[in-house]
């Protein structure tokens, strides 16, 4: 007894030591290549195409350019702070915008080739890759287009502050992309012609464009990075980064976007808008830059600190820290299991221990033996359990939990309590949707228990056998129409110009009655309700028809003897006996209608205004357009509770069936 325990203690000691050493060595890896510190703020930074020229501009009027290894190549001193800098992708030319109102073009040795003076401070500059075209933004709210000799080509003023500028293309095909506080995005040709204009919803703080001009990454003050299609100005995607975007940088192919927020955090996004990586700095970030090939990233801070990081190494560091943490956890678990097993084994190796073991574990062991004998049964249900656990239980639990968080999938899920629900309370689209769904539920239930029942009764009472069969079949045929097709056809029927409805009204001489059916807030919901008119739902029809068949002939015969026929029979026999079917259809309709989505998404899109919103539509838009995953989850919970309550209520309200 003594020996195993001592041995056990020794093993435990060694194992704990190993874990401590393991956890001490973790977190050593970072991506930082080198860093610099200057006096004052490091306002701005830029990196060339392959990451071997890195420029830092500071509030102490100095622009410094470093090579990849961190040795300083040259420095240039202006008469005031350097506010903006850009380098050609070959690193041969550097352009600097200064608070001294000058824009300087510097050659490969840091010598000023020329300078251009604006009426106010130049706050940012961009240069074409062949150095033949420059665009300067200045505090006089103007953009200046310059040629390679520093001659003014054109000037444009928006009337709001402008600081976001970038250039793509070379020679005569060079284009300047400019974004303003007035949220206007403009692409200018070399000659100053505005080729494209687009408007975003918030002030543009910075932007960057790919080398071919296909994509423009725009940062706005609402904390969104928007990827804009360079060809037509449409929005490709929007990603929320949680805090107002200060500066933005982009690789030449647009694969990676680096966005600095005003919280000192920079996020690396991929070309789908997913956040790949987060960089934290201790001080407020002034600017970020990324090499054209994405190999290195640079940060400058308010404290005059500049840093170059290898992007791959930084990513690897994050990953390896993660995996080391995992290793520690697994190590600890394995140790726990080993310890327990060893303890069990050492107890069993004594006589009294064995007796103790056998008496105390008899129950569980019997259960285990039974389970082992039934292993085939478990094997039978295993695939189902796995599928349900992954795609039903887990998402349901996840939705429940994340409804109480500010959920940014893959990044963070901050607990916010009831905030998402409070948000819904003051969201007029949600309330409007709520009301609309209530109307849709009432109408939906009212029509599913009437029209199909009427049709079923009528068909059931057709005396001619063939006619009865033909009618039953004809009314079921529409079941083959996919719901989406039905909605699309009705969209066409409601078309204001060539729709069947308006054309029929015109043909009947009722031109005054024609409408833009989806366009008027008072008619839109009614129009949606009338989709599928006359609402002979084949499923409900069959259910009622089956119910009628199920009512035994004796009851019919008895009723006939009693003189009940026609309507009397309908009210006193059929309706009570079909209550079960009606209740089932009511529940199914209720559950489906609470989740109404396609019916409004494909017709009015919720409009006009909020006239035809439904909560499910709001959920979809919250998740896809506004990136409010937490609020979307909260809507899911609300709908779930409504469905649960409605279903329980309907079962509680059920009286015992008459037969």
């Amino acid at each position: 007894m003594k020996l195993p325990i001592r041995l056990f203690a020794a093993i435990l000691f060694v194992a704990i030591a190993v874990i401590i050493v393991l956890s001490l060595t973790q977190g050593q890896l970072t991506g930082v290549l080198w860093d610099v510190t200057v006096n004052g703020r490091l306002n701005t930074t830029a990196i060339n195409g392959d990451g071997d020229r890195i420029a830092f501009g500071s509030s102490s009027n100095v622009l410094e350019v470093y090579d990849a290894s961190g040795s300083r190549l040259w420095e240039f001193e202006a008469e005031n702070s350097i506010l903006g800098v850009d380098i050609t992708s070959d690193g041969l030319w550097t352009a600097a915008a200064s608070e001294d109102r000058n824009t300087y073009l510097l050659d490969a040795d840091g010598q000023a080739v020329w300078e251009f003076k604006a009426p106010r401070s130049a706050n940012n500059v961009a240069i074409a890759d062949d150095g033949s075209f420059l665009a300067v933004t200045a505090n006089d709210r103007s953009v200046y287009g310059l040629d390679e000799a520093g001659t003014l080509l054109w000037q444009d003023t928006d009337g709001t502050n402008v600081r976001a500028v970038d250039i793509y293309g070379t020679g005569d095909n060079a284009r300047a992309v400019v974004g303003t506080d007035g949220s206007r995005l403009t692409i200018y040709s070399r000659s100053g012609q505005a080729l494209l204009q687009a408007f975003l919803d918030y002030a543009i703080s910075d932007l960057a464009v790919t080398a071919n001009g296909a994509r423009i990454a725009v940062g706005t003050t609402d904390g969104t990075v928007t990827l804009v299609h360079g060809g037509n100005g449409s929005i490709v995607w929007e990603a929320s980064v949680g805090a107002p975007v200060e500066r933005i940088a982009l690789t030449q192919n647009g694969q990676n976007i680096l966005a600095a927020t005003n919280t000192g955090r920079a996020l690396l996004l991929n070309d789908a808008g997913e956040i790949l990586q987060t960089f934290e700095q201790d001080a407020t970030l002034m600017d970020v830059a990324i090499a054209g090939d994405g190999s290195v990233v640079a940060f400058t801070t308010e404290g005059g600190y500049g840093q170059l990081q290898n992007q791959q190494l930084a990513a690897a560091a994050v990953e390896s820290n993660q995996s080391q943490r995992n290793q520690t956890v697994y190590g600890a678990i394995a140790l726990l299991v080993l310890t327990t097993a060893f303890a069990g084994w050492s107890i069993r190796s004594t006589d009294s221990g064995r007796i103790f073991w056998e008496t105390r574990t008899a129950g569980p062991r019997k259960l285990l033996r039974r389970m082992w004998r039934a292993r085939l049964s478990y094997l039978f249900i295993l695939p189902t359990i796995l599928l349900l656990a992954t795609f039903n239980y887990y998402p349901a639990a996840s939705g429940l939990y994340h409804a109480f968080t500010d959920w940014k999938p893959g990044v963070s899920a901050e607990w916010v309590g009831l905030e998402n629900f409070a948000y819904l309370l003051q969201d007029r689209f949600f309330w409007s949707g709520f009301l609309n769904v209530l109307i849709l539920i009432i109408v939906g239930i009212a029509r599913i228990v009437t029209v199909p029942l009427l049709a079923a009764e009528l068909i059931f009472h057709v005396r001619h056998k063939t006619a009865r069969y033909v009618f039953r079949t004809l009314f079921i045929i529409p079941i083959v129409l996919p719901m989406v097709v039905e909605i699309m056809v009705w969209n066409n029927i409601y078309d204001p110009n060539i729709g069947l409805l308006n054309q029929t009204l015109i043909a009947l001489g009722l031109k005054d009655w024609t409408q833009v059916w989806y366009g008027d807030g008072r008619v839109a919901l009614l129009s949606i309700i009338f989709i599928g008119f006359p609402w002979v739902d084949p499923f409900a029809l069959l259910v009622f028809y089956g119910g009628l068949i199920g009512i035994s002939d004796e009851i019919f015969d008895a009723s006939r003897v009693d003189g009940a026929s026609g309507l009397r029979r309908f009210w006193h026999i059929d309706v009570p006996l079909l209550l079960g079917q009606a209740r089932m259809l009511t529940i199914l309709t209720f559950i489906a209608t609470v989740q109404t989505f396609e019916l409004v998404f494909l017709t009015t899109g919720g409009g006009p205004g909020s006239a035809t919103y439904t909560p499910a539509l709001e959920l979809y838009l919250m998740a896809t357009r506004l990136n409010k995953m937490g609020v979307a989850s909260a809507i899911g919970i609300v709908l779930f509770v409504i469905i649960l309550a409605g279903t329980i209520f309907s079962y509680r309200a059920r009286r015992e069936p008459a037969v």
Partner: protein
Amino acid sequence: MIAKLIPNRNQLVILAILTILFVLVFIPILYLIILSLKDNGQIYGRFWSAPNPIRWENFALAWEVINRPIINSVVASSVATLGNIVFASLAGYAFARHQFPGKEILYTSILALLMIPPILTLIPEFVLLSGMGLVNTLWALILPWMAGGQVFSLLLFRTFFANLPEDFFDAARIDGGSELQLFWYIAIPLSGPIIVTVAIIRLVATYNQYIRPLLVISDPQKQVVAVAITQFTSELGVTDLGPQMAAYIVATVPLIIFFSFGMKYYVSGLTSGGIRA
């Protein structure tokens, strides 16, 4: 035949109402067919005239742009349905005819999922699929569809297997059949009707799904037909109405085929009278 009907005024009224209902039900379908055979000039210029000339080529164009989504739909729905049937029948069999520890707890916890609406799991499931790297693949539809119908299918299979006479199984057990053989050689051959019923329900339900594919598939090449036919102008570049309408009809064909095989089971399943709450 008509002579038999004429004397009865009630019968005439019934037939008249049914005929009116029938006409109303079929107006949109007829409208769809007529538009599908016209070109834009005929629709905008001569709204009320019959298609002349009949534009059969609308269907050729529709097929050209929609065949890929239709194939995607059929593949995704079929694979999901097949998996659904295989797994639900296995589990339904175990729950119906086996005894094992934890059976009731497991069954109840599975049935509880009937209360969870798809809208609740939609967003978390999308996040999960993104994490798995399955977004923009057909697996992002197949796996959730396979899981989504499991509960109801399992319920149907369990009820069906539980009602099979024990004698069949005893006889086979005496002959030395293993549990797997009992399932495969006794239970499955008897369950043709229930398999067809489940298959129809699942095929139709998945083929009609809209919001899930809309969310998890953005590549037009991978899109299913229910979503594709709503994105003619934006993704497929078809602006003429005729071919769009033709595509709606073409998109219906797989459902017509599903139903022509299973309509009999579907109708008898619903009209056998047992359905009520």
